[in-house]
């Protein structure tokens, strides 16, 4: 099951549970009427349990998601990576056309004009990583491509009339005898601490 199907399934299950509750309660108006005081007496007890249950569930969900946050800890930032500057501008991405397989790439994403989004779609068309491309700021996005093939970058922040056509194709190639040259890659200043990373909870 891919990421899209998992998300939809999760949504549909939760929505179905909610629908079931609403339909059951609406249907109960066909039953003989119950005094409001009586309903409240039982209802408040259920509400107390619901309050506790939902609060604990949401707190647990919060802690469960933290390991999958894309924000890089300082130690991770020091891991070896190919640094690749990406410049977004209306309505193109300036970046290399080829990337090596299984090598950690650290995209240094910025914009020359307005806000853009830098979203990477894998050969199956799934959105695997993204960050914003902002003027005056650099967002660091670490991605390791494990799958060779044809990838597409799409703009994921509305940037004007050409927003929908703002895209860039690149290929990821398997291990070649000589490492693929990285035309745009350059050693970046050591004083900038990359502050982000992308991890995929579905992988």
């Amino acid at each position, binding site marked *: 099951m891919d990421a899209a199907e998992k998300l939809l399934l999760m949504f549909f299950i939760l*929505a179905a549970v909610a629908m079931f509750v609403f339909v059951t309660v609406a249907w109960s108006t066909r039953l003989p009427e119950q005094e409001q005081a009586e309903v409240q007496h039982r209802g408040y007890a259920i509400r107390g349990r619901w309050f506790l249950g939902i609060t604990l569930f949401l707190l647990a969900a919060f802690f469960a*998601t933290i390991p999958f946050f894309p924000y890089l800890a300082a130690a991770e930032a020091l891991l070896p990576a190919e640094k690749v500057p990406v410049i977004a501008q209306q309505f193109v991405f300036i970046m290399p056309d080829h990337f090596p397989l299984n090598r950690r790439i650290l995209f240094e994403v910025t914009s020359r004009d307005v806000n853009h989004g830098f979203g990477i779609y894998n050969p199956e068309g799934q*959105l*695997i990583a*993204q*960050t914003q491309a902002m003027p*005056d700021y650099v967002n*660091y996005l670490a991605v390791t491509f494990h799958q060779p093939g044809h990838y597409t970058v799409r703009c994921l922040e509305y940037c004007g009339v050409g*927003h929908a056509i703002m895209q860039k194709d690149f290929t990821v190639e398997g291990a070649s005898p000589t490492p693929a040259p990285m035309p745009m890659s350059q050693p970046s200043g050591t004083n900038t601490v990359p502050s982000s990373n992308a991890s995929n909870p579905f992988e």
Partner: protein
Amino acid sequence: MQATHSNNSSPGRGVMTLYLVSGLIITALMLLVGLTMRAAQANWLPLPPDFFYALLTLHGAGMIVALAVCAMGALWFLIRRHIELSASLVVLAWVLIMLGVVGVIVATLVGRFGGLYTFLYPLPFDGSWPGWSTGVFLIGLVLVNVGWMIWCLQMLGAVLRAYGGLRGALAWDYVWHREEFQAAGRQPPPPEAFPALVAGFDGLIAGMDATLLGVSLLVRWLDPRVVINPLWAKNLTYFWAHTFANLIIYMLAALIYVGMAHATRRKYHTSTVLVIGWWSSMFFILANYSHHLYMDFVQPGFMQYFSELSSYLTAVPVTAVTVFSALMLVWRSRTRWTLGAIFLYAGLVGWVVGGIGAEIDASIPFNLHLHNTLWVPAHFHTYLLGGCLLFVMGWVFLLLESRSARETSGIMRGLVVALSFGGMVVFLLGFYFGGAYGVPRRYATEPAPGPFIAQFATVGAVIMLIGFTLAFVEGLRLRWNRAVDQPLWPGELKEAPHEG
């Protein structure tokens, strides 16, 4: 409780009618604009991209303002049942908002301004549209914001005056010093006073933020040498847009408290849980906006953690208080399932289901895959269209039904429900599927499978609009068959005051 049996509409009802009618007319127009865009994405209607984005800007700004206007009018009326309010002030607010709406329409339809209602700096100044349209759009939104702040001040002032300052309006002593409170024979504010307090308070904070942002952008418009920090502007923009949009549904909770109690023939009282729920909502509504900046890795890290936690916990007061209470009202009651009751109840479903979609998107690991995809319009359409608009329609129908000699036939009710909700579900599913499959939002032409999905969504939207049209016709018939001898509902607790 003495109901005014006068058949003449009071100033309070007049204000509510003014707000509801104007809000619903704008809503209807914006629904058609939305349908046009979805048909364009389905490749059924050729629209040049600059016009598409102008329509998108109009649709977003127009819809948010229209639904807010409906909520403002209804809540104002409910508060005026308890304390005198100046009708001329709230009409002034209405005039300013409508002038702002005209500005937005002119800027988008004439000037083709396409910077969206989120107008992230510096886009408004870097677009394909003329500079004047940027100015007219910004001035329009500033006018809307001034009208909004007048209304917020009036609401906040009303609840503070009526219930003894902030301490009384918050029902502080009712919660913490219950025995003395009751011994003194005091009553806590009625349930609908809490949406008014929260909208007034949080709304003013959002309004001040919008004023700061609006003035900064207007200064930049007048003098292009001025530079603004784009991250600062993004924070201010989302703080305003999120808070304003979010407050609409919280304001409409007041209609649930009064309307569902009426439909179920039960009583709805203020309780400690309700009060504490609203205290927490008052805080969460302001704290959540930063989830719009999850993919801004330069945003201070603690805000990302904080806004995920806060976005999650928002669900607690909504489900444990408003939704749960409404379910308790309905459970084994003698509810007459008129169109009014059905719409109000269905709106709760939209709120909860949209909330589920929102919580998934508010989870940072999922947000990586959903941020700025169609999942975002999926969840907010679920609770703006399937929640807010249904609350407003439910309220209007309850008002009409309470005074009509006519009863909606079973066939008509069935048709309206089947077409409106059936079409709506298909329309909304288009956004959810598109989002899950990574189709970006705000694309004039979508990559596959976007156009294919948009075709289903367009058909769903047409079916839904047929249902809404039938509902409109039925509403008119209820209005024409008005029984003059019926008492007005909801009764106004005080006699209509003379205007001061």
